[in-house]
Every structure is written in C-alpha cells, then in structure tokens.
C-alpha cells in the first residue's frame, strides 16, 4: 500500500492557503482512489491552528515542523523541513500545492531523498491500483498522462484544479518532527505587494481581462489613444475586480522603455513565456495571434473576445463568443454600465 502524504506550509497568520487546501483535496482523492489512508505534514512558525483547521480531513497522523526558522519562505530551511517531514512519515507519494514556496524547495528535498517530482499537475487519479498524473509540456501545448516507479514521488498540484478542502475544524494531535539546525546565509527582508488600489493581478478573480497590443495601435482617426486605453483598461479591472493579463507584445513594449501602458509588467504576461492563469471567465480585447499565443487562456472557463478581425486565430475556435467591434467603444460603454 502506497503511503500518501499531504504536505503544506502555513501562512503568516498561521492558516493554510487556498492552494494548500486544494492540494489537500487532491491528496484525499488519490488516497480514496488507491484505497489507502494518508497523513499530513505541516511546517511553519506555529502549525497548531492550521492542523486544527483541517483536523477532520481524515489524515492519520499530523507530522509537524514548527519554529521561527520556518516562518518565512527560504530554500535552505524549507528544504530541510520537507526532507525531515517526509522521512518521518515514510511517504511514498507526497502531494502539495505548486505555490512559489513549495515549488522552490520541493525539488531540493526530492533530490535529498532520491525521489522524483512531477510539478504543476492538472489531474491526479488512481487507475488499476496505480497513481497517474496529468501534466502539460511545451508550455501548455500538449499534455501527458504519467506514472512512475520511483519513490518518494512528489506531486505539486496546480491551483484551481481541485476544490478547496472545506471540512469542520477539530483538535488535531500532532507529532512534532525535529530538524537539525540549518546553516543559511539568506535573510528574507520583505514582501513587496502593490497597494490594494493598484493591485491588478487577482488570482481569485472571477474574470481575467486580457489586453492585447491593439490597444496601443493607431485607431480609426490615424492616431494612437494610449492614455484612454490605460484609463479604460484600469477602469474596467477596478470596477469589475477582474485580474489583468497582457499579451507578450504589449508587455515587451513597456519593458523596452516606451511609455505605453506603464502599469503592465512581465508579471501580467500570459501565454508562451507568461502565466496560464485559471479563472472561470476570460475577456480578451485587441488580442491577435495564432495557437502558440493562445495558451495564455488555456485554463479559462468561459471565453469571450473583442477585436476587429473575425478570422483571428486568437479567437476562432478558441473562444465562445467573438465580438467584431472597436474595443475602445465597447469598453467605454461597458465601464459606464457597470458604474
């Protein structure tokens, strides 16, 4: 019987993130499919509250590493904690979120344990008594269904694939795991997050608004209208509380020092060398391009687009509705209607 371990870290407030709660659902699903139980492993400054919050999840044992050294996301301490937890649990398959903290440290722990990693997994299931994962290759251009013999097998699960665990809290009995003192030369200084009113990347938003390079091109009057484009885009994302994404060409233009849409950075980029976010809905405006560029909204549920070309490869066969219209005119009205 495979020993399955759910692995997570606590947040600054001692809770578990949504991504970690989704990974807990993934671990439960796999354990049920394999007819096995599972354990949980938590690390952070103080994990008691987090363990209690998921006490009813069905985990057999809660292995925990606590201490100030593990409060912040740092490779050396995180990799040591993960290694110790997995050794204590004797885990064969370790399921966790693919957030930045775990993505940084899990591969190092896997190496120390002579294990392997399948990262950014988008499906996880048991078939004929074996675990299978699905993950994408070549930047979401194709997907593979994989199983493997090496253990421990670390599986990091992409956000939005599984529902977040939502069970009743309780009183968890935790088993503390000791970690030998870790020598590190790194100090975490700060988290730099945009102010709430300047925040345009909202992973939990219901809608992704994708701005394409067409916003900065010459319009019907022969002139570009970049300031108005900025006002319309930011106006919409603020009013609709949408997350903002951008095509590569538009991001590159601002990265090359042009005063195009200064609020766009590489963090907004979706597609081949950007993000492939998950949102229930997506609205693409002024986006053009063929299949390789369209991976940016591979994981968007309902998709609509506004652009001037009815045959555009970004939209045809890729979105549900294509409005062939001037995005300036449409978004001006949309902004007015949503107040």
């Amino acid at each position, binding site marked *: 019987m495979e020993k399955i371990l759910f692995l997570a870290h606590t947040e600054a407030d001692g809770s578990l*993130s949504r*991504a970690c709660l989704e990974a807990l659902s993934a671990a439960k699903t796999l354990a049920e499919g394999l007819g096995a139980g599972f354990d949980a492993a938590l690390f952070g400054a103080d994990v008691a509250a987090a363990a209690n919050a998921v006490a009813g999840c069905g985990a057999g044992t809660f292995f925990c590493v606590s201490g100030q050294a593990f409060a912040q996301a740092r*490779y*050396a301490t995180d990799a040591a904690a993960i290694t110790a937890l997995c050794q204590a649990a004797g885990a064969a398959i370790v399921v966790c979120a693919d957030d*930045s903290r775990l*993505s*940084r440290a899990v*591969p*190092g722990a*896997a*190496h*120390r344990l002579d294990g*392997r990693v399948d*990262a*950014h997994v988008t499906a996880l299931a048991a078939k004929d008594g074996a675990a299978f994962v699905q993950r994408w*290759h*070549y*930047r979401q*251009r*194709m*997907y*593979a*269904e*994989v*199983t*493997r013999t090496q253990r421990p097998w670390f599986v990091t699960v992409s956000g939005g694939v599984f529902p977040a665990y939502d069970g009743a809290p309780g009183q968890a009995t935790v088993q503390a795991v000791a970690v030998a003192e870790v020598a*590190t*030369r*790194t*100090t975490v*200084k*700060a*988290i*730099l*997050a*945009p102010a709430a009113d300047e925040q345009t*990347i909202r992973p939990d938003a219901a809608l992704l608004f994708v701005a394409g390079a067409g916003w900065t091109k010459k319009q019907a009057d022969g002139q570009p209208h970049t300031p108005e484009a900025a006002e319309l885009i930011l106006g919409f994302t603020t009013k609709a509380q949408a997350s903002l994404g951008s095509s590569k060409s538009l991001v590159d233009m601002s*990265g*090359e020092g042009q005063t195009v849409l200064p609020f766009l950075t*590489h963090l*907004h980029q979706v597609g*081949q060398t950007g993000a492939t976010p998950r949102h229930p*809905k997506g609205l693409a405006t002024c986006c053009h391009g*063929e299949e*390789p560029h369209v991976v940016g909204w591979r994981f968007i549920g309902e998709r*609509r687009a*506004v652009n001037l070309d*009815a045959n555009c490869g970004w*939209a045809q*066969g890729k*979105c*549900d509705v*294509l*409005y062939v*219209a001037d995005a300036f005119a*449409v*978004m001006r*009205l*949309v902004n007015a*209607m949503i107040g």
Partner: protein
Amino acid sequence: MSTGFHIVVCGGIVPDPLQTLEPVSTPAGPGLKNEMMLPAILDPWASHALFEAAHLAKGAPGSKVWLVSLGPKAKLQQVMMSVAQKAPFELVVCDGPAGGFTESAEVAGALAAAIEAIPGLDKTKLLLFGGWQSASRGTGTTMQMVGERLGVTEQFQGVDRLTVGADGSLEIMERVEGGAYQVSVCQGPPAVLGWATGELPEPPNNPQVGMQNMRLIMPALQKARPAKVGADGVTFAAVELPKQRRETRIVKDTPAEDIAREIVAWIGG
C-alpha cells in the same frame, strides 16, 4: 573584497514557439514530430538568465560567464550562431536529448557533472543561473537539483532582479503569489538563481562578440561529452494535443451598445 563572480548559466534549447508541435511515439519514449528538423532557440527564460549574467559580469571585474547546455550537438551549433552574438560567454556542451519528456533529475545529473568539470571554476564565487522553468519540460525543478548536487543551498526561483551590495551581498527579488515579490538578502555566492524574465531587454546582435565567442564555441562542440539522459522509471500512458475546439459565435455588425450590454450581463451572470 573581490566582486568577481563565476557565473554558470544552464540553458537548454527548445523548438521555436511559433512552430506547430505534434507529439509522436519513438522507441525512446514520447517525442516531437520532425523534432530534429524544427527550428530551435535558446530556452526563453534561460536567455534572460544569460543576459542578466552578462550584464552582471560586465559590472564586476574579474567575472566570467559559462553557458552549459544539454542538447544535440548539431542543433546547439545552429542555435549558438545567433546566441553567440548577444553576450560574451564560454560554452560547455553536453551532447544529449533536449526534449521535454526527459527527467529533470537525470538532466540535473548531466549538467552538474559538466559544471564540476569546468577547469578553473571557483565554487566560492559561483552564481548558478538558469531559467526558473524550461519551455519544454516546464517543471521548474532542474536548477534546484543541480544546486543540490553542487552543494549550493542558497537558492532563489522566479528571480526578476539581483542587486550586488557594496559588501558583496546579493539582494534578490523573487516572484511570489498575486503579483508580489519576496526580497531576500544572501551574504554572497555561492547561490542558485532561477530567473523569470528579469529586467533587461534582449541585447542587440554584436558581431564582434559573436566572432569572439565562436572561436571557443566550435572547440566546445567538438569536445562535447555525451550525456545519457532519458526518463528512467517513467511510463507515459498518453501524450496528446488538447482536442477541444470551441464553436465560436461571431457577433458582427452589431451596435456597440448591444455588445456592451451583453458583456455586462455575461460578467454578472
């Protein structure tokens, strides 16, 4: 304090993103149709790492940049014709498969062995650069494993900025969730930095740099050590293209007011 760094950039090659890719089965496992015929480029995130390395080395006298690449020699030679014109570096070649279905642990083993064999490499000055993910396998796991094999446990991923302090310390900005950055300070090398896009634009071609690089690239290709890299222990049950094609409803010759109203209703629905 010496500010010179020994910067090793790990960078593979990937098919040009504009190419149509189709998976096929081969005796060695999954691959791409006409894989050897597809035009290739240096992996985009590894390219950013190389540009950042060259920029850092330029500002830190005594520094040197190596580019360690795993791929078929013939393809690497093609790609280096253009990459060599971008930044000064010394190439180290591992002759092996560059596809996206190989195992990152095996790739890390080959890269680490090649790095260990670099003559004159001072590990106390080592900054190990690479992309935070490849555009082929896309796991974001290789750099950490290379670092572990080399005994480097100060590691950073999703790096967009590196600032060297007057005392030789490294201030690093890593991407974290929700468009935020984590800022850390590392006392100095050795360290692993998996770069995201960084902050530098692609440098223009410099034929002089290209000629200088090519003097060393051709011998490096001739000296390439074979790297046996695969996906031992992995079973690919299926490799497929996404088949979903949506029935797109085209709305044209419709007043903007009607379209806006429909979009607002859809957003709120």
